[in-house]
């Protein structure tokens, strides 16, 4: 059962990677689309973390979730300031929609869980989610970004989120 569950979560992560990859491959995203994708990805993680802070009773998980809120809000603030400066209006697109749909499905699943089962599912998803977003940043979004400042911010974001991925793996290891 446990292996099945783990496989399910692994598959969800894999699907997200694939979805992101496919949507991005079809057409190279423009800067307004990249901005929208980055902002959407950030907000998804903030919402998941806000839910975790409310639901989890585990201090390591709660602390991790608070770290996610703090960092992703800082990145969003930086992104909004840059968009205002560049006068770029974020543009909705297929990749953003895929991210939102995937997040809705994940949240619906997490909402059914409590206690240790919730903690594990949340943290495992954080590993998979950050991994998928980092892969998308590295292989698609950063290379496609035209504006140098946007490229810089995405590169910094990638560094932050790689730290989150490692942190999530560490918390996942503690939960076992």
């Amino acid at each position, binding site marked *: 059962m446990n292996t099945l569950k783990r496989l399910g979560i692994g598959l969800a992560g894999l699907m997200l990677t694939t979805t992101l990859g496919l949507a991005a491959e079809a057409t190279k995203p423009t800067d307004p689309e990249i901005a929208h994708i980055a902002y959407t990805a950030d907000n998804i993680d903030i919402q998941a973390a806000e839910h975790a802070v409310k639901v989890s009773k585990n201090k390591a998980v709660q602390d991790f979730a608070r*770290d996610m809120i*703090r*960092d992703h809000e*800082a990145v969003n*603030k930086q992104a909004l300031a840059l968009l205002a400066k560049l006068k770029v209006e974020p543009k909705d697109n297929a990749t953003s929609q895929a991210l939102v749909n995937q997040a809705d499905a994940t949240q619906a699943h997490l909402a059914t869980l409590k206690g240790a089962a919730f903690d594990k599912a949340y943290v495992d998803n954080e590993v998979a989610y950050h991994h998928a977003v980092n892969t998308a940043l590295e292989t698609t979004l950063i290379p496609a970004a035209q504006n140098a400042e946007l490229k810089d911010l995405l590169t910094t974001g990638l560094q*932050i989120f790689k*730290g989150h991925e490692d942190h999530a793996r560490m918390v996942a290891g503690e939960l076992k």
Partner: protein
Amino acid sequence: MTAGRGRRRACVLAALAGVVLLPAMAAAETITVQVTKFSFVPASVTAKVGDTIEWVNADFVDHTATAANKGFDVKLPANKSGSVTVKKAGTFPYFCRFHPMMKGTITVKK
């Protein structure tokens, strides 16, 4: 006139005090660690008892410098600094509570 003399005397006293105090003050140093791109730079510093370690956070996210033994926990808000004065000799590993992958070490000599 009296006030003038009083001020002069105060100046002389201050100068004398300076002479006495300066060597002691010069002995304690401030060692700066840059906190940039999610790293403590340099990651290892050596200090003497009485020195101050100052962390300058250049990132736009908050960090902390937290001793593994909980001896200090310095908050480093985005683009701000924080410091701690080291009082004991020894090796003190520290990390960022928000980003546990960020690690550093202070070696304090007598």
